[in-house]
């Protein structure tokens, strides 16, 4: 095991990164084991090795994106475990994570993406525009500056990722499999670009991991890794010499430990027997797919016979995936027909689905299930006989070398192993036909070879038809026939050898590039050599001058605004969300303020009148005549009374005893019975109050009639004066109270999801590796939603006044000031929840749970906070909504101003820093 870097070729002797006995575990899996390497500065250093040997982990440690567990990582002259050093150096490091455009924002345009990164690194407007202009020019992305990233091809995304990484002129550029899943032409352009940049900026060090050995052959220094350890370090030539091999692929295989090498042998696909190729398995006829204004697949026709291996090549975004999706029935074709085994594709045809295995380009298995559970689930869904499943699962695990990771979750596995799992899943039911969309992207050479061996066996022995798309030329050469696709059209379709011959090219790759250059009319790379041209002519395009102001302070307004502006842009690109957030609140206010009626009226009641005299009927009439009660059919007997109360039909039942009128005349004591439905205590209390009042009224009236002057005229009068809402209209009382509810729930939900979404979808990595601080990140995320909240406050108040005619009597300025503080607090609550949750589901449920209940129950909306008890009272006292409800009611109904309400503003003012502080304290700046 050689840990000695080859210093011969290093221009400087100071290493840019030094790793000393670095180790790291994911749970029980050991990803890195005592890795020690020195990465010399000014070089292009490549990490090579099979999937899952710890290349990505190593890169993320060097980038400072991940917490260091064991050992020592020193980058740019400081310890990466030291937060202060990380903060100092991170503006000098650029990190491009694995996966096509994982750290980019799909709804933002090319320019906006780069601009966002420029802001994060604190460049001024002019500086940014200059740098972006140069970078886009140089990467040929300038014509697409306004195109949303989601609509770019994979190669363009990678180039854009590089622009984003280079915007701040880093000293150390870390690229994790930058060319995986990229077509050969784009790959050439990509390496040309790196070469140009290095030529202009000789001090820059580049660390790359790659699965393409032909690329690795042109790097300055290689680090071969296996099973979390370094196997060898040296120049490509060193490795070749050491292993006595001629190609890096072979050298790499030779470097592997004996047991891993054993299974490997050259893939040789036997020729197809001549009698085959009669029955057509897949047939596309003038297949076309149009999305709005753009044609993704343009009249594509081909036939694939049973048992054939048919390769599909083409640049990223040329329509390969769309064609495959149409064949599987996932996308209905705009026109043309697709037939599988002679039957037209029908998404409801279960029988055809059972004979097809499909693997999509992006990993689309369940990350919540282990490898075994994923295999098992799919086996069952394809209705394999239950007793055969364990054996089949094990067979697939063995075939795809998954036995060691059977209990692992896909998220913890590297791309290559995940791809193998997807393949295993696609083949679990031994389908008659396989449709594989770039199945070997990111898979290491050995695994790729063994995979092709399987394909070969399937095709030749089991007569399985295989339709596969790939970017690897050596794979394309193995196909029986290939089709070359570009911009939705098939350019050529023939055997690989015939295509090479037709172009008079030396290799298939050259033929491929030649075809593409014909159609696009561009000369792809500036250099025609395959792979990176390390000795590119220097100084053609000046690299932006170094020394842009490097902001290291704790809080930088520009960085915060970078996040705020990006968030606002994303919101603007999603008009549905913006509309829901604003119009939705208005609709809600309307529904709730209109429907939430605290007047208790229209109560149902019935009478069991066992007297049935004029006087008893008069008693009943007293109740029936009030606006609070509606009389139902009289009660027949006690059983009827019981039944009707039990069903909830009656809120009140009155029983008038026999002899009521007679006893009354004689001055004997009588008793009227009243039963109230106590299921809703508040309603029951109100009913009790009403009945008592009416009983008393009736008595007084009756007494005057029966007893004449002997009866007391009302002793006194109680004059009721309802203030602030003289007619006691619920609407007037409720509208101001509903506003706080809406300004809580919607901004909080938006803020929560904005953060958790980044965590779930991966762009949180930008927060880990750029100089943005936790506080800047949080406030930046918060700002647009505070804005939406304020806009909502304004709209809601306007609607309350104009539509509901709720008078606004107090100080509007105070109301808006309070609204500002309040939405800052509510979005702050969202941020705290977001730092505690990882999944969007949990985040959403937590938000609903932690906002809706306290706000509707403990914040004085219905019961005043002063009357609450226990934990509810405590929550009510600290909950921001309580104070804003008081302010909203005060300014709307009570004609109050700042002088009367400033005390209520204080708790809101305190809540904001407390919530932000808690959110920042709970948020992690590195992956664990």
């Amino acid at each position, binding site marked *: 095991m050689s840990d000695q870097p080859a210093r011969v070729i290093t221009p400087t002797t100071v290493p840019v990164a030094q790793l000393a006995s670095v180790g790291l575990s994911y749970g029980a899996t050991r990803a890195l084991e005592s890795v020690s390497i020195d990465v010399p500065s000014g070089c292009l250093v490549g990490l090579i090795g099979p999937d899952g040997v710890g290349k990505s982990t190593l890169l993320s440690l060097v980038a400072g994106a991940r917490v260091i567990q064991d050992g020592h990582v020193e980058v740019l002259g400081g310890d990466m475990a030291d937060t202060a050093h990380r903060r100092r150096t991170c503006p000098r490091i650029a990190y491009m994570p694995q996966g096509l455009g994982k750290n980019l924002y799909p709804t933002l345009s090319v320019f906006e993406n780069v601009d966002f990164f420029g802001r994060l690194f604190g460049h001024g407007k002019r500086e940014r525009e200059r740098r972006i202009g140069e970078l886009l020019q140089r990467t040929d992305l300038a014509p697409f500056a306004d195109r949303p990233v989601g609509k770019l091809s994979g190669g363009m995304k990678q180039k854009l990722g590089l622009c984003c990484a280079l915007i701040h002129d880093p000293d150390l550029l870390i690229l994790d499999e930058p060319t995986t899943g990229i077509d050969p032409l784009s790959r050439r352009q990509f390496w040309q670009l790196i070469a140009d940049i290095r030529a202009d900026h000789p001090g820059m060090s580049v660390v790359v991991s790659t699965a393409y050995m032909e690329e690795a052959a042109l790097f300055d220094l290689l680090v071969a890794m296996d099973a979390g350890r370094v196997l060898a370090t040296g120049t490509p030539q060193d490795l070749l010499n050491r292993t006595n091999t001629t190609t890096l692929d072979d050298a790499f295989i030779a470097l592997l430990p004996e047991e891993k090498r054993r299974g490997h042998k050259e893939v040789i696909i036997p020729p197809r027997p001549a009698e085959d190729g009669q029955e057509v398995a897949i047939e596309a006829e003038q297949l076309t797919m149009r999305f709005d204004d753009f044609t993704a697949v343009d009249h594509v026709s081909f036939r694939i016979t049973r048992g054939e291996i048919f390769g599909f090549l083409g640049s990223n975004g040329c329509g390969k995936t769309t064609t495959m999706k149409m064949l599987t029935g996932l996308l209905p074709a705009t026109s043309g027909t697709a037939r599988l085994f002679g039957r037209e594709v029908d998404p409801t045809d279960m029988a055809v689905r059972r004979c097809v295995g499909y693997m999509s380009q992006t990993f689309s298995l369940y990350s919540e299930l282990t490898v075994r559970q994923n295999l098992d689930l799919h086996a069952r869904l394809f209705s394999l006989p239950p007793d055969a499943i364990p054996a089949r699962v094990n067979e697939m695990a063995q075939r795809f070398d998954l036995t060691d990771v059977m209990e692992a979750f896909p998220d913890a596995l590297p791309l290559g192993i995940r791809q193998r799992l997807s393949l295993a899943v696609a083949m679990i039911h031994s389908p008659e036909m396989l449709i594989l969309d770039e199945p070997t992207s990111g898979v290491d050479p050995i695994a790729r070879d063994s995979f092709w061996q399987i394909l070969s066996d399937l095709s030749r022995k089991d007569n399985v038809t295989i339709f596969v798309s790939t970017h690897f030329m050596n794979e394309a050469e193995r196909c029986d026939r290939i089709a070359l696709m570009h911009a939705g059209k098939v350019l050529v379709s023939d055997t690989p050898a015939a295509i090479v011959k037709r172009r008079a090219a030396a290799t298939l790759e050259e033929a491929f590039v030649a075809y593409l250059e014909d159609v696009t009319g561009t000369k792809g790379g500036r250099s025609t050599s395959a792979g990176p041209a390390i000795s590119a002519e220097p100084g053609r395009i000046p690299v932006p001058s170094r020394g842009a102001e490097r902001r290291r302070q704790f809080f930088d307004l520009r960085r915060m605004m970078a996040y705020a502006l990006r968030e606002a842009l994303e919101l603007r690109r999603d008009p549905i969300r913006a509309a829901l957030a604003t119009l939705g609140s208005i609709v809600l206010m309307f529904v*709730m303020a209109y429907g939430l009626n605290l007047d*208790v009226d229209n109560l149902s009641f019935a009478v069991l009148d066992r007297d049935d005299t004029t006087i008893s009927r008069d008693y009943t009439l007293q109740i029936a005549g009030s606006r609070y009660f509606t009389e139902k059919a009289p009660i027949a007997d006690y059983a009827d009374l019981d039944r009707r109360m039990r069903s909830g039909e009656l809120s009140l039942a009155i029983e008038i005893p026999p002899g009521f009128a007679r006893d009354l005349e004689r001055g004997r004591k009588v008793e009227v019975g009243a039963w109230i439905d106590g299921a809703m205590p508040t309603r029951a209390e109100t009913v009790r109050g009403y009945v008592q009042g009416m009983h008393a009224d009736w*008595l007084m009236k009756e007494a005057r009639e029966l007893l004449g002057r002997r009866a007391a005229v009302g002793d006194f009068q109680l004059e009721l004066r309802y203030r602030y809402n003289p007619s006691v209209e619920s609407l007037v009382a409720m509208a101001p109270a509903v506003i706080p509810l809406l300004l809580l729930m919607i901004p909080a939900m938006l803020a929560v999801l904005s953060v958790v979404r980044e965590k779930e979808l991966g762009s949180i990595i930008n927060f880990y590796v750029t100089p943005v601080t936790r506080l800047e990140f949080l406030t930046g995320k918060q700002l647009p939603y505070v804005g939406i909240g304020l806009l909502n406050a304004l709209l809601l108040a306007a609607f309350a006044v104009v539509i509901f005619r709720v008078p606004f009597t107090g100080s509007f300025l105070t109301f808006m000031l309070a609204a500002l503080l309040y939405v800052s607090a509510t979005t702050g609550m969202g941020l705290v929840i977001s730092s505690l949750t990882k999944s969007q589901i*949990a985040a959403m449920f937590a938000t609903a749970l932690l906002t809706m209940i306290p706000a509707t129950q403990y914040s004085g909306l219905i019961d005043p906070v002063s009357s609450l008890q226990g934990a509810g*009272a405590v929550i009510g006292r600290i909950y921001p909504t309580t104070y804003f409800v008081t302010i909203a009611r005060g300014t709307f109904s009570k004609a109050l101003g700042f002088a009367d309400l400033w005390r209520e503003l204080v708790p809101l003012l305190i809540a904001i820093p407390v919530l932000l502080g808690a959110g920042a304290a709970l948020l992690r700046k590195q992956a664990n």
Partner: protein
Amino acid sequence: MRLANILKLGIKELRSLARDPMMLVLIIYAFSMSIYTGANALPETLNRAAIAVVDEDQSPASSRIITAFNPPYFSIPKLITQSEMDRRMDAGIDTFALDIPPNFQRDLLARKSPTIQLNVDATRISQAFTGAGYVQSIVTSEVSEFLKRYRSAASLPIDLSLRARFNQELKKAWFGAISHFMSNITMLSIVLTGAALIREREHGTIEHLLVMPVTPFEIMVSKIWSMGLVVLAASALSLMFVIHGLLAVPIEGSFALFMAGTTLYLFATASLGIFLATQAGSMPQFGLLLMLALLPLQVLSGTLTPRESMPELIRYVMLAAPNTHFVMMAQSILFRGAGLDVVWPQFAALFAIGAILFMFSLRRFRQFLK
């Protein structure tokens, strides 16, 4: 065959859920702590209502009235001057202010029927009504007691015997527990199913399912049964141990019947969750739709305020919401001990709503994949 798929996909959902510890913590919280706190927070009847008195009479009669206001219904009345009254009410310090005029006692004895003024802060709408009634009856009884010493007045010998059924002491904790319980069931079942579907789309896994011999029908049913089961189990445990056990709320009717009704309800809300998910393009949109749906469901279902008192239009519209029927059903079974003969219309309504939402979602399903 199909059943096997539904079963297997559902188990997959359960496994996913088990992988999200935060979600499990939240579910447990929602069905224990949250209900317990909610039940105990509501004040028992009128509690410590803030009252102030302007005593311009300073007579034995007036002081008799003042001393009659006591906790727990009212706070000890604060004696204030007329000028203070407005300021205090503006600031929301007092909910009630009683103004006893000068010469009140003299006029009372002279049968001049003097007038006492009661000011009520009507923005505190829940206390305003009941509280005013209480003040009225307290003042009336004090005045008549006071007058009895001076003269005897004839009155009619009719007593009103008022009894509350099903919750005789009108304990709000009972009601609070059940209403929190119901709103958490609603919230959880909608979030779980809806978000589970959106997540499948955001992660691309649903596409994978659709190239296998699995129908949208099976996918939807599997989500409904698995997530429904989680909520059903959580609610059964919560009802038994938290509500019946810890909070000592008596359960009048049949536990099994209630669980059967809850199952139907979960079918409806889970279908609603899926329906919302098929309408939303992304998780943030779903989050907003969720709030837009949950708030009215929660507020207008009859858990917070009685249904009868809502405007007619709202009452009819809310009949389309599953909550309304669930609230009716739950109150009937749990408090009033009603049987299937009484609650069958609610059962039927829940099933119908669920079936309609399910059909709608099924139609939207392929479109949703775009």
